[in-house]
């Protein structure tokens, strides 16, 4: 049986029935990676040996009549900020270039229990700080749709892996848009769950109050399948909810939006939005209306004005503390020096890249005595205003429809010297993190130049299932993305 064009659930069910061998699936995946990596550089580490070994175990389980799990034999790629026991976890940084964790991230364990085979660790902006995957100590990743362009970031490697058909499913992390923006740039679906729905245990922290792990896939069904596997309560993460989770997969199979009110954010549709993306929004709007939804206009004025500055205080402030542990004393990169202070400064000066240092400096400043009230405390107040504003919006709308990014994928190097413009590419995604809400980028076809279009949908906290439901409806209209570069998946 050939598996070109199969999605994760189809692959898993074929493996479980013995129609496909997990080893064959993984081997094909690895071959494709070998062929395309020179062009894409989507992966930092390919786990060939581990993957083949695990695939053989899955086949063994099938042969012995055991339940191989809902992701049996499905090759999966995880972002390189998720710890993998015995496999280097670099965070795209020189600082952790050789660091091998002695434990798995919870999500890695959940995937493996479900029968998935992790075949690689994907490239990323260093410590997830960036929107282009150009800020990686391992070199930039290219967009599979147009290799002269960036894949977005910071989970650009995961987005590119799915877009290029390395795998049907990948995990990324999203602190201010790091799943949704690269999903938009690479033309795949990407979900950032409600803060607290997916365990962060083993995710190397960027900004702890904003970070959340989520899936990339080329079908809504696969996003739902992945959520069923990774969105489980975890006592190792005190911020992870113990509440029950719905079956996302069932929702994806029989979506129904009748009577749902879709809120469209008019102030996000101004001139700063690329016209093709504005067109995608209005197309989505019409289709949802024709599917039985009501359309309402909503305003997110506070998010529009305070979102970006608020985010760029809170996230760097937390990052400055989270990244302080990389001091060369216990693990990771170290520059020996004549005394302790010099060892610290040299280690950190050489171990971190420019963007990371810029954010550590910003965050340290924002938390410093004398500036804390003016910056950090003010940002917390702004964050509360943004949350409240979303809450008000959800009194008149069940789902918010808005753009995921203001622009189409930009060219490599285009914004490297212009951090503010780079930051701007997350302007529509980061308010969602500040409010802890679930947000999803849904593929919305290609424009005339063949570049991917997208829309973002946002739901109230813990209503991630509404997004799956809505995305499944939108997928009926826009169709599924096909893998770029003639992919395996």
């Amino acid at each position, binding site marked *: 049986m050939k598996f070109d064009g199969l999605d994760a659930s189809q692959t898993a069910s074929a493996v479980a029935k013995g129609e496909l061998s997990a080893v064959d699936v993984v081997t094909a995946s690895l071959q494709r990676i070998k062929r395309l990596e020179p062009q894409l550089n989507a992966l930092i580490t390919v786990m060939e040996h581990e993957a083949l070994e695990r695939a053989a175990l899955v086949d063994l389980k099938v042969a012995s009549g055991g339940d191989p799990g809902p992701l049996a034999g499905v090759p999966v790629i995880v972002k390189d*900020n998720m710890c993998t026991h015995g496999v280097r976890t670099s965070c795209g940084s020189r600082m952790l270039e050789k660091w091998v*964790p002695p*434990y798995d991230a919870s999500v890695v364990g959940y995937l493996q229990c479900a029968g998935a085979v992790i075949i690689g660790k994907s490239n990323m902006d260093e410590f997830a700080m960036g929107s282009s995957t150009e800020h990686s100590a391992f070199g930039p990743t290219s967009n599979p749709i147009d290799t002269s362009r960036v894949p977005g970031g910071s989970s650009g490697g995961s987005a590119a892996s799915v877009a290029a058909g390395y795998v049907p499913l990948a995990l990324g992390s999203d602190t201010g848009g790091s799943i949704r923006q690269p999903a938009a740039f690479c033309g795949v679906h990407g979900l950032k769950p409600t803060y607290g729905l997916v365990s962060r245990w083993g995710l190397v922290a960027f900004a702890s109050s904003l970070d959340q792990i989520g899936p990339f896939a080329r079908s809504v069904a696969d996003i739902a399948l992945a959520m069923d596997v990774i969105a489980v309560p975890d006592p190792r*993460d005190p911020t992870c909810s113990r509440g029950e989770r719905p079956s996302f997969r069932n929702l994806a199979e029989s979506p129904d939006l009748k009577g749902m009110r879709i809120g469209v954010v008019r102030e996000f549709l101004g001139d700063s939005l690329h016209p093709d993306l504005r067109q995608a929004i209005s197309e989505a709007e019409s289709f949802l209306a024709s599917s039985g939804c009501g359309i309402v206009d909503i305003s997110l004025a506070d998010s529009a004005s305070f979102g970006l500055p608020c985010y760029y205080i809170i996230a760097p402030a937390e990052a400055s503390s989270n990244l*302080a*542990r990389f001091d060369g004393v216990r693990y990771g990169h170290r520059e020996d020096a004549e005394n302790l202070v010099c060892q610290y400064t040299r280690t950190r000066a050489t171990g971190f890249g420019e963007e990371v240092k810029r954010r550590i400096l910003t965050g340290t400043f924002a*938390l*410093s005595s004398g500036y804390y009230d003016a910056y950090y405390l003010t940002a917390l107040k702004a964050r509360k205003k943004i949350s409240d504003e979303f809450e008000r919006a959800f009194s008149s709308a069940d789902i918010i429809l808005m753009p995921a990014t203001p622009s189409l994928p930009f060219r490599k190097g285009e914004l490297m010297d212009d951090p503010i413009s780079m930051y701007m590419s997350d302007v529509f995604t980061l308010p969602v993190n500040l409010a802890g809400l679930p947000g999803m980028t849904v593929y919305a076809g290609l424009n005339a130049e063949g570049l991917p279009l997208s829309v973002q949908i946002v739901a109230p906290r813990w209503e991630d299932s509404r997004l799956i439901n809505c995305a499944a409806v939108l997928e009926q209209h826009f169709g599924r993305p096909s893998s770029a570069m003639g992919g395996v998946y």
Partner: protein
Amino acid sequence: MTRAFETVIGLEVHVQLATETKLFCSCPTSYIGKEPNSMVCPVCLGLPGTLPSLNGRAVELGITAALAMGCSINRNSRFHRKNYFYPDLPKAFQISQYDLPLAVCGSIPIFIGGRKKIIGITRLHLEEDAGKLVHGSSDGRLSGTSFSLVDYNRAGIPLAEIVSEPDLSSPEEAREYVLAIRRLVRYLGVSDGDMESGSLRVDANISQKCTDGRWGNRVEIKNLNSVRAMERALEHETVRQRDILSGGGAVKQETRHWDDVAGSTRPTRGKEEAHDYRYFPEPDLPAIVVCDPMVRRLEEGIPELPWAKRERFEMEWGLDPMDSTALSERLDVAEFLEGVVAAGADSGISANWVRTDIMRILKETGLKADELPFTPEALGDLLVKISKGVLSNTAAKDVLEQMYRKGLDVAAAMNAAGVDPGGISEGTLEGVIRKVLEANPVEAGLILSGEDPSGKKKKFLQGLVMREIRGQSPVQDVASMMDKVMGEMKKPNGSSV
């Protein structure tokens, strides 16, 4: 003009909470004497991607101590991150409490020369301990070392920091305060309070208030490794600050390091204290929400407090302050004593026995009073026998020895000690008395001729009799029998000695 000064002292006492596991992970806390870095995990080593999980027991112990000091418990408190770089701090921040501590506004009484003084408690908060640096130089000090080793076994051990109001006005009061805190945390089982092993640590803040209205700046003193060291440091610092102020100078606000060998304080190096800790709320931990039922449950579990027991022992039983203090210091001992008295024994005799014999046994064996092989009721029975004159004090001590060494009940212990109350017949007793009188003719003669007005000779002879009969007759019986025998001797028809 001569100026007078008042010393103003506030203390920060860190007590290690007696939990089984660390504050944010499940590593054991029993690190003393263990191989360095053998009691660590990814969480307390602060490895990337790890997250803290709060140990509920530490919260309970913190609340218990706070309630005992009459603090109000914050129903919502939270952790902050205190950021600074040091190799013993794995995450480069310490998880501590800042603006919303676990508890605030309490007090604890101290006793100075019989006078009671209430010392205010500002706050009690929870935090994690750091690891320990071992410097490579031959003397183990930082200066001149070419390398340092870090042991993270202690990293993440739960601490409660208890901050006092600046209510202490002398090194002596500071000492009594630290001892009171230590007694309390031990009494409650909140901490072992051992200063030598570092499970109780003190930083002191001291300043001088001058009668001319001037205030000296506050100085923080660190490296106080014993109560004695703290007292000496505060005495030294009092003199140093008063000298400066008397000379018209100003005390610099700074942190000073106590050098126990030199007997003086010196400024810590500027760099070490130039910290801006950049406190901000710990995003990895939700707020600590303490509900009323939890507070009630912990409150109900708090026994009568040492100072209350002490006052009661004095009021109800008339114990002197020395005895009442010593006997209220440990909950197990105090409760044992109460058990003995409840069994009907005289409170004075009971206090005396518990303070001497029971304390000696506890010290020898390292047991707690409730782990002794005999119950307080058994000791009570024994002491009642003394009061009733059934047993002599000496014999009772032999019996107690048997009860403790062999774990026997009172009756069996009396047998084992060869003590048989009333087992000496009158005839036997009379015979022994005659033998003793014959063996000591000089004393007997003096008594008979009325030359023993103080009764000392008589007591001496009674003692010899008691020894002969191994205390098996009450002392009153011995005395009356001796009187009878000597009365007979005086009679004209009696044999003369």
